[in-house]
């Protein structure tokens, strides 16, 4: 667009003056507006009558839109909120993350509480079979051996060969001790062979770890392989090392010569464990006591 030409109205004095007056009027108009503004600020109700009259003109039209108005009443807030949506979003995300951490902490505390309570009950039941209790503090995560470190050692009476169980089930057995720690060979280690029975019917089997967290269950009677997913396996007590009837594993999948199972007590989820005396030792003690109580019976034979 070309610059407007009315800037120079020619040589006519009249035209020039009238243009000049126009500018003066414009400036005067601004001043008038300012004065009115000052008056209305000093006396806010001064122009109320004027405005009320003006509002009366548009009110009927506006009233007609009443229903529509309600539905879009807070469009302003929504639009304003849109502008700090990013920062609000970040803030909320931070809150959610903090809350999630707290929730997880609370859940973990609850689970730990339940574990400890179960352990307490078990300890009452098991009585003198329990050597000590401790925590699984770490494990050989990068090695192919499945060995966990227990926080109790020979100072607490832990010795090589002692079985270790958690509240939910068997964990493994001690293979090394030091004064304050012990190494626990987990069920899933390939070296760990444990005699087990299927729980409802007592089908005997042998369990050996596969090193990847699962256990291979092979029935002693080859040829009978009717394992089903979900069946439970417990220690049988034969061999004299592990006490009988400790929950051991659940069957995950049937294989050609047995079944794959997963330990019930995952070492990862059970921090608090008990070290038990070997079953045979306990049994021998009971036997010894029985023999002591019946000295004549041995003489008779």
């Amino acid at each position, binding site marked *: 667009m070309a610059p407007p030409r009315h*800037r120079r109205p020619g040589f006519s004095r009249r035209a020039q003056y009238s243009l000049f007056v126009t500018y003066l009027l414009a400036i005067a*108009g*601004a001043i008038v507006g300012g*004065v009115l*503004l000052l008056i209305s*600020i000093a006396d806010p109700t001064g122009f109320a009558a004027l405005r009320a009259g003006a509002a009366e003109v548009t009110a009927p039209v506006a009233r007609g*839109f009443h229903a529509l108005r309600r539905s*879009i009443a*807070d469009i*302003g807030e929504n639009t304003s909120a849109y502008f700090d949506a990013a920062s609000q979003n970040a803030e909320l995300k931070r809150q959610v993350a903090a809350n999630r951490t707290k929730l997880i902490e609370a859940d973990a505390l609850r689970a730990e509480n339940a574990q400890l309570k179960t352990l307490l009950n078990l300890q009452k039941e098991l009585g003198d079979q329990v050597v000590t209790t401790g925590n699984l503090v770490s494990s050989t995560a990068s090695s192919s051996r499945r060995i966990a470190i227990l926080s109790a050692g020979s100072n607490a009476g832990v010795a090589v060969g002692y079985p270790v169980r958690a509240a939910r089930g068997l964990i493994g057995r001690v293979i090394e001790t030091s004064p304050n720690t012990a190494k626990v060979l987990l069920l899933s280690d390939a070296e760990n062979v444990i005699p087990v029975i299927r729980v409802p019917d007592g089908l005997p089997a042998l369990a050996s770890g596969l090193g990847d967290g699962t256990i291979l269950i092979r029935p002693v009677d080859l040829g009978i392989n009717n394992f089903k997913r979900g069946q439970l396996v417990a220690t049988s007590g034969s061999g004299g090392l592990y006490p009988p009837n400790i929950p051991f594993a659940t069957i995950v999948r049937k294989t050609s010569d047995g079944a794959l199972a997963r330990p019930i007590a995952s070492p990862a989820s059970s921090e608090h464990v008990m070290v038990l005396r070997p079953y045979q030792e306990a049994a021998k003690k009971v036997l010894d006591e029985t023999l002591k109580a019946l000295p004549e019976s041995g003489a008779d034979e």
Partner: protein
Amino acid sequence: MNQLLATGRKLLGPSREYESRIDREQSPARMLLVPILSVMAGSMATSTLPLVAGSPLLPPFGLLILLAWRLMRPGMWPAWIGLPLGLFDDLYNGQPFGSSALVWSLCMIAIELLDLRGVWRDYMRDWLIASVLIMLALLAGLGISGLAQPAPEVRIILPQIVVSILFYPLAVRLCARLDGWRLAT
């Protein structure tokens, strides 16, 4: 298509088909009043539209149309037109009375000063000028209402500024249509 237009013309009543096509006079009243009435209608629109916004959101339609006319047709209005139209706008805008009169007058003076530069302007530059003026006008409105009562934060009117700047091209379109109609013979 032509048939459709013909039907439309029939429905709309007798057209000017049988009038002379040359040497027609344009209506002076329409020529003078259409711009002014359109600005007044824009001022009234904000209090008529079905919006009870919790925050200022609607653009100042009156100011937009005023700027559109002023930038599209320099010299059509005297420079003092901001005062009467602003006073009318003050009846409806909810600001302290006189704020639009002041701000609109200052806008008109600012555009006069820009016209003194005498450079060529195109649509985008008009939009830029209008954007700056709209922004300053809205900020001034906020400041003025802050003189009378506690004003909200500037952040509140940012959406309104953006919406208003984006509405300016629409106002230009509207004014161009009205311009064509008002100057038609």
